[in-house]
């Protein structure tokens, strides 16, 4: 029987999944790789370790699960996190580690560009908010502060471009990932000259732009042998994690939005046109031609709840964070909606959408003498959800949203999905396949193979499982508290800045 394999190069891990041609999951596996923080603002990953980990886990998966099951792999579709920058020399040898999305070294460059007219026009042409995450900003930083390496660089790649080059040959980047670099014009589908000038490079120092359905070349012979794959196996360049999570969540037509909350989170919609936000709060990434994924990302998703659990949870055995979190979830369920007036701003990691303030910090607000430990847990969960809603609300200024799909390890916790439904006052469905990124990659491959006529048709096949309806009583409570939350998130700007400067000095 024939099958499709998806490879997702995520922030912490590579996930490999296999589907039969009807979309049933045949198996899944993952393996992690580390992020190095050699300086406070730095987040880097070793491209060789990512490549070897991917190869290792793919080989094990194929030999243990796919080949013995009698399945023949017909295509492998790739997907990766956005905004990474990897420099390679003329032989394709990496010049140091890859700089990933979470890296903030370009803080000052971003701030300067964002306030300028050039920044505004670059945002409009490229769809990428001006922020240290943007590849453009990272390259501007490198040009200024790491000149030797910048000069030696033959190509500026993304991590996925590097992995694909290792497996096949060419240097390529798909439209989706390109649209998150800040260098790609999402209207003309070409590298944007003004951005190239700002970064100080020519287009030939970037990989070749290709559509998401593109095949960069044959899998090299050596890998065919070591992975036990036929010469005919098709390597599909694929898309970005954000775009594929949207597709895999079954979001296609207008009126639908998807909330993803893993460690970080995002709210996304899909449309034939970009969302032009005059305040530059939302991104517009390209899934396919005339198909834009728009929305906003938050730094502070499930990672904040996990932080709380690690600090204040009741650990019965060493390292057992899963059960600790489960007990906290049970505690939170005992507290009424609104946490009896305790409000939490979850900005422990600074924040992106909608306030785009790297200096923002976490805050418990409104503590009174009756609040117990469990109120704090509830407040943390609600604070994460309020933040998601503030992104959703920004989107609602531009588009109507009638229903929501949620996915990701944090958002699919039943109590979280319920809180989201109540805060948004909208029905919320949870996808059946918890891994909507892989699901999206499957739909992309299946469309490429002609199983579906279009991505539109593919997305309609996504089956949603549980649905929650909003509770009117709870919604009213949340609406009142959200107004305070929203005001606090901007009211403290001066204090956030002063305090984060003090923290940096400490």
């Amino acid at each position, binding site marked *: 029987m024939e099958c499709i394999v998806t490879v997702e190069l995520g922030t912490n891990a590579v996930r490999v999944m296999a589907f039969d041609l009807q979309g049933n999951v045949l198996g899944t596996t993952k393996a992690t790789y580390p992020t190095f923080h050699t300086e406070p603002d730095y987040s880097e990953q070793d491209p060789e370790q990512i490549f070897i980990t991917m190869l290792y886990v793919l080989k094990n998966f194929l030999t243990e699960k796919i080949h013995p099951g009698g399945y023949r792999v017909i295509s492998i579709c790739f997907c990766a996190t956005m905004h990474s920058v990897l420099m390679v020399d003329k032989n394709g040898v990496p010049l140091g580690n890859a700089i990933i999305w979470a890296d903030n070294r370009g803080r000052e460059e971003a701030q300067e560009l964002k306030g300028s007219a050039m920044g505004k026009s670059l945002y409009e042409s490229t769809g990428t908010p001006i922020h240290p995450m943007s590849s453009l900003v990272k390259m501007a930083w490198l040009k200024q502060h790491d000149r030797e390496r910048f000069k030696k660089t033959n190509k500026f790649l993304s991590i996925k471009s590097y992995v694909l080059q290792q497996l096949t040959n060419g240097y390529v980047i798909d439209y989706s990932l390109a649209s998150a670099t800040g260098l790609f014009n999402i209207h003309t589908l070409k590298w944007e000259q003004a951005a190239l000038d700002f970064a100080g490079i020519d287009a030939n120092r970037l990989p070749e732009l290709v559509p998401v359905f593109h095949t960069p070349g044959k899998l090299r012979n050596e890998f065919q042998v*070591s992975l036990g794959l036929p010469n005919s196996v098709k390597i599909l360049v694929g898309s970005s994690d954000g775009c594929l999570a949207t597709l895999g969540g079954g979001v296609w037509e207008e009126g639908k939005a998807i909330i993803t909350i893993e460690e970080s989170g995002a709210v996304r919609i899909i449309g034939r046109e970009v969302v032009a936000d005059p305040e530059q709060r939302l991104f517009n990434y390209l899934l396919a031609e005339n198909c834009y994924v728009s929305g906003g990302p938050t730094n502070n998703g499930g990672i904040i709840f996990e932080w709380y659990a690690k600090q204040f949870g009741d650990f019965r055995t060493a390292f057992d964070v899963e059960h600790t979190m489960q007990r906290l979830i049970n505690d939170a369920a005992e507290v009424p909606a609104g946490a009896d007036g305790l409000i939490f701003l979850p900005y422990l990691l600074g924040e992106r959408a909608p306030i785009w303030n790297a200096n923002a910090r976490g805050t418990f607000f409104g503590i009174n003498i009756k609040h117990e430990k469990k109120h704090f847990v509830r407040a943390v969960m609600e604070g994460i959800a309020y933040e998601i809603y503030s992104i959703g609300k920004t989107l609602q200024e531009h588009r109507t949203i009638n229903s929501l799909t949620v996915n990701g390890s944090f958002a699919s916790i039943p109590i979280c999905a319920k809180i989201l439904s109540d805060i948004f006052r909208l029905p919320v469905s949870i996808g059946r396949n918890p891994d909507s990124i892989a699901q999206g990659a499957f739909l992309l491959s299946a469309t490429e193979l002609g199983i579906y006529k279009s991505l539109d048709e593919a997305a309609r096949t996504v089956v949603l499982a549980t649905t929650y309806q909003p509770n009117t009583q709870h919604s009213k409570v949340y609406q009142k508290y959200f107004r305070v939350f929203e005001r606090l998130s901007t009211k403290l700007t001066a204090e956030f800045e002063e305090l984060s400067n003090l923290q940096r000095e400490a």
Partner: protein
Amino acid sequence: MNQFSLQQGVTIELEQFPHIREFALQKNATIQLNSFIPYTAEYLQIFCVTDGKFEWAIDQREYVLFPGDVAFVLPGQRIGGSKGFLDIGAIFRLQIEMKFSESTDSSLGSWSTLSPADQQSIERQLLVNNMAVLFQVKEAIEMLQQIHAELMAYELGRVTRVNHLLDSLLIMIARQSTRQADSRRDFPRTFMKLEQALRNNLAHQWTVEEMATLFGLGTTSFTERVKHYTGFSPLNYLINIRISEAIKLLKQPNVNFTDIALDTGFYSSQHFSTTFKKLTGYTPGEFRKRSVPNDTN
């Protein structure tokens, strides 16, 4: 207990223990300026407070110590009073010769009955946890009192007992430093420490036992957690890092295959070549030719 001071080469009680540089119980009744100016430790120093409150700077960090607290200072680290003097109170002070090194030789010397692997684990743990002060370690005072009693009594088995007690003290300190590290709540963070330890000494023949001690876990539950978290068994994760590092070296011309193999922890260039080919489909030679086309090596 009365105060005492045993100094190597001065007091006769330490004659059979050349590795103990100093062992003392000091009761300090008055504050004297400049009585504890920061200095760089030559030996492993263990302090234990029995009375009073001490404010110290160890390795550039400030600590306040109360009775039952233990401070240990590794050779090369700095220690002194925060204000340059010794506070009022009573402390045990023990200095032991210890060589911190990357080599596989034992760091303590022949007096210790700890296996070389245990000695290395203790050493690594003290370095990795980077925690100069352990709070409320009641056993420490008892052990130090026992060492003193044995030293003074001259009974049968005196040398063996004192050395055993020193071993026990070191084990206790290493274990306590792992327990106290709040890393026991944060697997990913502790795993990052392991990752760094592995990368710092990739040529070392790591065992699962050694790795597990960094987490204060038994090997079974350690292996389970590593598999759950990384997707690999501990040893396969290590191979993963070894191959990644080897690839980087292969991409530099002029490093020969045997050096690459040994630096990254393979037994031989043959072992390296087999493992490499099995995973990547390339021999190291073919791989280098592909990556560095102009190389003539």
